[in-house]
């Protein structure tokens, strides 16, 4: 079902017009309310009146995650704090969180976008949906929750963690839809299989996101659970989940272009890529009030097409993600930068800065092992002391990353040294 046919099936001309009007209004508002952007525009000799059409978008400055961090916590907000009704945050690269805010209208916009995603996945008021993303500062749980309520579905706010309880309620309530990470859904499927209960469920749709996954994973999920699985994309800086999602044809993720303008750029030259060419995805918000962003660099690599989809939607589609233009890892929905591990290890006197991250997927759950070299000056003859060091490192890393970590002490000089940029990550998850 198409939730908002007017907006999702506009002609490209109408999209162009709508985006142009919204962009020029947005730039004017941001110029007068956000010092950071006003200064940037002034430095570039740019005035709000110079932006009259969506074609002028490329004149605007880029925004990066660093800009958000430099203006921590509320420096980029374009409204007085009294108009902000919600804050979300995600862990940042240096311990400082990336903080995002929403006005009442932003929340409305968010739940509109998520309702479109769910409707596209065939979910409606007759459905019972378990939201098994984490609730809290992470945008996944509450984002899906409000969207599903807006749609009129019956929402069961599971959050993440208790698989047994989730399965019991799934069966007892006759749950028909679920929103969670794809790897967690596979884990649920295996737990059901082991209990011989895989055919005792009524799921028909799954809305999966917050981590990269492959077409093969979709096929596996669909075959095991006899449902249709859909891909949802988003990032908290722009909105949270619901910036884009795929339809039943699975030919790329439709971007809600009436609110977010996608661009694909070459991450080195920053020049726009041709349609179909892989580059870094960049978003400009058109309607966000609390945290409007110009040309935010997502670091996600993909390509875009503007062809009309078989489903009838005219919205541009971004392809499955091809990776990242930086070294960020997504592990169980949590963003992890190797530099975070390094910073955390530096806080522990007994460790060396030589480390390696081993990411794997075991029983469909992502695991992170951090290998740390034992340094002779801190090496003790006692096993107890080495074990407590292991625990201490695991604890520090867990609180820095927001993710449980397995720590392995390794012999000195066994972690590869390199002349240039050290290789810090071995990702054994087969994603492509």
């Amino acid at each position, binding site marked *: 079902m198409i939730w908002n046919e007017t907006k999702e099936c506009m002609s490209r001309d109408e999209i162009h017009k709508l985006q142009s009007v919204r962009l020029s209004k947005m730039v004017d508002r941001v110029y007068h309310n956000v010092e950071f952007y006003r200064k940037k525009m002034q430095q570039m000799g740019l005035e709000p009146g110079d932006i009259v059409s969506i074609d002028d978008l490329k004149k605007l400055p880029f925004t990066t995650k660093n800009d958000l961090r430099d203006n921590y916590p509320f420096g980029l907000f374009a409204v007085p704090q009294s108009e902000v009704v919600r804050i979300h945050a995600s862990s940042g690269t240096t311990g400082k969180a990336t903080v995002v805010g929403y006005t009442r209208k932003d929340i409305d916009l968010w739940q509109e976008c998520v309702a479109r995603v769910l409707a596209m996945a065939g979910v409606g008021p007759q459905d019972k949906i378990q939201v098994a993303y984490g609730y809290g500062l992470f945008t996944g749980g509450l984002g899906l929750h409000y969207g599903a309520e807006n749609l009129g579905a019956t929402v069961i706010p599971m959050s993440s963690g208790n698989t047994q309880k989730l399965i019991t309620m799934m069966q007892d309530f006759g749950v028909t839809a679920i929103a969670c990470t794809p790897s967690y859904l596979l884990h649920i499927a295996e737990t059901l299989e082991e209990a011989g209960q895989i055919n005792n469920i009524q799921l028909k749709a799954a809305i999966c996101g917050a981590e990269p996954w492959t077409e093969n994973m979709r096929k596996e999920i669909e075959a095991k659970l006899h449902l249709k699985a859909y891909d949802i994309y988003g990032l908290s800086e722009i909105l949270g989940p619901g910036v884009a999602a795929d339809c039943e044809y699975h030919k790329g993720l439709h971007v809600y272009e009436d609110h977010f303008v996608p661009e694909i750029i070459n991450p080195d030259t920053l020049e726009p890529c041709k349609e179909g060419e892989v580059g870094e995805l960049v978003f400009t918000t058109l309607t966000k009030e609390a945290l409007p962003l110009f040309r935010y660099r997502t670091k996600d690599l993909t390509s875009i097409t503007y062809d009309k989809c078989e489903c009838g939607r005219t919205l541009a589609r971004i392809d499955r993600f091809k990776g990242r233009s930086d070294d960020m890892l997504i592990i169980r929905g949590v963003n992890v930068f190797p530099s975070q591990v390094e910073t955390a290890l530096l806080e522990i006197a007994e460790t060396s800065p030589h480390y390696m991250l081993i990411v794997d997927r075991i029983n469909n759950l992502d695991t992170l092992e951090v290998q740390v070299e034992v340094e*002779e000056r801190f090496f003790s*003859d006692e096993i107890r002391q080495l074990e407590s060091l292991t625990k201490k490192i695991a604890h520090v890393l867990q609180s820095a990353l927001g993710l449980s970590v397995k720590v392995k002490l390794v*012999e*000195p000089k*066994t972690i590869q040294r390199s002349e240039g940029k050290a290789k810090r990550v071995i990702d054994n998850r087969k994603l492509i």
Partner: protein
Amino acid sequence: MIKQLSVFVQNEIGSLANVTSVLKDNMINLRAIASFDTPEFAILRIVVDQPEKAKEVLNAGGFAVKVTEAVAVELEDKPGELDGMFRVIADAKLGVNYIYSIVLRNGKVPLMIVNTEDLTKTASVLKEHGYIVAEQEDVNA
């Protein structure tokens, strides 16, 4: 007291052989060896005839090595000897962390290497009770 080397090794195939081959290549003779393992790593404890040289060559081979003192007690090959030693240590209110032994000593009696939280006190109470505590020279030959 004698010198003992503790070497950090990962619990992996061949990791013990990596240590022993470094010793062999440098003509260092092992007198005793004991491995204390956890699922992830092990501490290999060894007594050798040339402790300083052993540390040097193991360090050069990339190993983390700790040289510590160890109490090595001469025990005669008869029932009750070990029991007597443990009693002396227990009566002195000392806890044993680990023990291992040197059995082959060219006709001499075996040595029991014992680690407690207070090695000096352990050596002295044992001596008070008539036990012979070996010195490094005793294991060099």
